[in-house]
């Protein structure tokens, strides 16, 4: 295994950033500087299209300064830093901190916060990888993806397209404050295969996702599933519209992961507690799920695409047990929310990039496994569905609702799969009801880090989620 190397750019700017920090500390009670240098590349092949280049979302180089004058906070994000810029930057920060009167109409005021207590912390860490995608090279990567594509297209003439892609991000983050000097170098890589087949005007699609905290070693896992994926896509051509109702369901680990993420992950983001927007706040210490359920979130809880050593506010990564045997224990939080609530931050303060504010965000979110098998779960159902292939979800922490779009529901009757498929499915419900109905959980646990998470419709961060197969009672439509 090799270690991800530090960015030369960050290395070259560190002394200048320390001078900027020192200059700002002359005027402000709290100052932090986060410097980011990240590079993200994507590669894709399909029947009629190829691509290779940098992702504009994942490739970023810049800085964000956060200051407190003892009462109020302000942040300044910029991406130009050279000798001679320090006075200008400090001037911008000063103007920002003096702007409240100009910004606020009558009737509005500014919140006051104490300065966060800090302990001295010096840290340097790098994640591991086996194969550097940059060393593997675009040629080898595209050849690998093309081979998978050809295999997928060869399954049947009815396959309209097989789109294979991969992406990686390699980043260095430097966090400086009066007491902290922390640096981390991280790399993750993901891959995906998606199929399309047409049924007249309607296109049915199916995707498979792969991810690892590491490098191009993830690509070797992709080829084995191609024919299965193509086969499922062809099955979808025979799918029927879902019949709305409440059913006993077995959820695949990917669907479990989406439920965990949307229903409970978002529901315990403590910036929502600050705003009184999360019902979960009232349930700390109470049963919110079946006793089978233990749930984690943390950049330190698993080795996946949302793993890091410290968050964007300089808090070390945690493994937070959110639910323990059905009881809600605690939420996850960023630094400012923790200050307001009088709790400890959990290392979940994340920015989409240096350009954006930090919010409480999930990282690796999952249920622990149980003791049952998928086969036992299916056998226990008189009439219901096996849910697979989640598409997207939306949180509702206030009312503890959940919306998940799922691609496949396989009919179960008298304990057996009938072969009928329904698609697409809208999964909704009241979270505690859903979680309390969980009656079986498999030992097998899978996490997937192929997706991104938004706070509503913006602020996109990399996350992973997952868990075991679960059996639960769910409303489908």
């Amino acid at each position, binding site marked *: 295994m090799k270690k991800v190397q530090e960015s030369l*750019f960050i290395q070259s700017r560190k002394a200048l950033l320390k001078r900027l920090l020192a200059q700002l500390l002359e005027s402000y009670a709290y100052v932090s500087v986060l410097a980011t240098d990240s590079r993200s590349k994507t590669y894709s092949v399909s029947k009629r*299209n*190829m*691509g*290779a280049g*940098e992702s504009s979302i994942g*490739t970023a180089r810049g800085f964000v300064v956060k200051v407190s004058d003892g009462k*109020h906070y*302000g*942040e*300044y*994000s*910029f*991406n*130009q830093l*050279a000798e001679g810029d320090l006075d*200008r930057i400090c001037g*911008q920060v000063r*103007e*920002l901190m003096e*702007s409240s009167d*100009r*910004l*606020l109409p009558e*009737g*509005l*005021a*500014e*919140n006051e916060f104490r300065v966060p207590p800090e302990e001295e912390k010096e840290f340097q860490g790098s994640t591991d990888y086996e194969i550097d995608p940059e060393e593997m090279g*675009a040629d080898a990567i*595209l050849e690998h993806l093309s081979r998978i594509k050809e295999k997928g297209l060869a399954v049947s003439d009815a396959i*309209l*397209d097989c789109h294979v892609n991969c992406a990686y991000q390699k980043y260095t983050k430097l966090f400086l404050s009066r007491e902290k000097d922390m640096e981390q170098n991280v790399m993750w890589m993901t891959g995906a295969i998606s199929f399309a087949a047409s049924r007249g*005007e*309607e*296109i*049915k*699609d199916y995707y498979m996702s792969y991810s690892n905290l590491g490098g191009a070693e993830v690509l070797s896992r992709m080829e084995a599933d191609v024919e299965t994926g193509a086969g499922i896509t062809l099955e979808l051509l025979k799918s029927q519209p*879902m*019949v*709305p*109702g409440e059913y006993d369901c077995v959820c695949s680990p990917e669907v479990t992961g989406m439920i965990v993420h949307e229903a409970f992950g978002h529901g315990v983001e403590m910036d929502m507690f*600050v*705003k009184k*927007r999360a019902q979960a706040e009232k349930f700390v210490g109470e049963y919110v799920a079946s006793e089978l359920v233990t749930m984690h979130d943390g950049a330190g809880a698993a080795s996946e695409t949302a793993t890091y050593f410290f968050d964007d506010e300089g808090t070390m990564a945690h493994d937070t047990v959110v639910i323990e045997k059905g009881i809600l224990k605690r939420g996850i939080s960023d630094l*400012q929310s923790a200050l307001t609530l009088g709790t400890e931050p959990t290392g979940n303060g994340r920015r989409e990039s240096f*350009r954006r*504010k930090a919010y409480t965000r999930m990282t690796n979110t999952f249920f622990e496994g149980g003791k049952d098998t998928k086969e036992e779960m299916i056998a226990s159902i008189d*009439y219901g569905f096996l849910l697979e292939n989640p598409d997207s*979800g*939306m949180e509702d922490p*206030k*009312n503890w*609702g959940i*919306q998940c779009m799922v691609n496949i529901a396989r009919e179960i009757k008298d304990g057996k799969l009938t072969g009928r498929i329904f698609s*697409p499915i*809208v999964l909704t419900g009241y979270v505690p009801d859903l979680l309390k109905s969980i009656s079986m959980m498999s030992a097998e646990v899978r996490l997937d880090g192929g997706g991104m998470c938004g706070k509503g419709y913006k602020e996109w961060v990399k996350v992973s989620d997952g868990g075991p197969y679960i059996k639960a009672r769910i*409303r*489908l*439509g």
Partner: protein
Amino acid sequence: MYGPREESMQGDSTERKDEILTEKIRAVLGQLDIELYQIVESVSESVECFFIRKKLDLKRRTALTDYGVTVFRPFEKEGKRMLGASAVNLHPGMDEEEMRAVLQDAYEAAALVCNPYYELNGGRRQEPIPSESDFAGRSLEESVRLMVEALYASDTQEEVFLNSAEVFGKHMWRRIVNSCGVDVSYETYSVSGEYVVQCISPQDVETYHSFSYRDADAEGLRRDVEEALAMTRARAEAVRAPKAGEYAILLSGKHMETLLSYYLSRSGTSMVYQKYSNYQIGAPVQGEDIQGDALTIELKAKEPYSIEGIPMKDRVLMEEGVLKTLHGGNRFAYYMGIEPTGNYKCISSPTGSRTLAELKARPYLHIVSFSDFQMDDFSGHFGGEIRLAFLYDGERVTPVTGGSVNGSILDAQGHMVFSKERYRDENYDGPYAVRIEGVKVAGEQGCFGE
């Protein structure tokens, strides 16, 4: 050239002298013998406010300069002409050595991207186009303050109020150049954001709203917030989900843009070329047998140029259900032998044949708020979880919450009836509402088909 290089963008005494790299990038491209390229330079600043209730929780500013460079490389593979491309991001402060390495790496990757040959769009240098927005005459702070004032103007009640809000004022200059003579630039202003309205009685509920303005429409924002406060009150009254079944549904407001985006997406050249869409100009894309209102949709240009520097103009997308235009960027248009139009996000449509009152004359389920209303451009399915809907059973209107809708525009498009009333948003100007019969709703109880 254009504004931000010569003076501070905010007109204050702290000048921002951005290092403008475009000419340096061109020089490096020349040194590497990279003949075909495109450079998009964006210089932006923003002022941002984050509120909890009526208190400012955090204030932010950004000052950013970004360069997106795409290099193109012609080559032959198995006797066929190809044009590979690879895009990279360059940053202020990059020295020539690093820039050269990144561009060289991209050029080598482009040699592997086996896309059939196409020509880049040509052009010549055009005068920069300043924004005509009435935000342009104000500082960003003034613009943000104006819209914050509008946002909170109606927040005067005890039981229903703004729980939180985020407001972003942004100013940007964008310049697009390519190796075929394109050299265009334009300016934009916007104030956008989101807010959550909370009502605490008779039950504690919330609704989410977003906004985006290119002009200082303070009155428009104030009005939208008033409606949001009323909607949230209604949600607080809703306790039950509708019963599972088939309903005539009404969709309205923001959901209209999402629903009709199906036609925008399916008529894109990237979808058509890759055979994900079978749309053809002259085809009755709304179906052969339209019992309801036949759609006419116009594509509206929001910016003067596309990301490739193609001059954008308004175009008719469909007329009475028949497709008139395929739209998209340079590459797929070249393959299809049609004019490249640039990519559109904004549509407008004439209003429909019935008043809202007429649409509501018979039983309906009017969903005014979803958790996340989605339209799947591939399958044509639309739906989402109901956060607030009004159910009319022929006698009375009841607010309901919970359950979900799952419909198909392919089933619906032949009998959609649109309202005469109009709704306008950032990317939509058209009928306020549509009535669609026979849509499946998952609700309170009942398992059909067991």
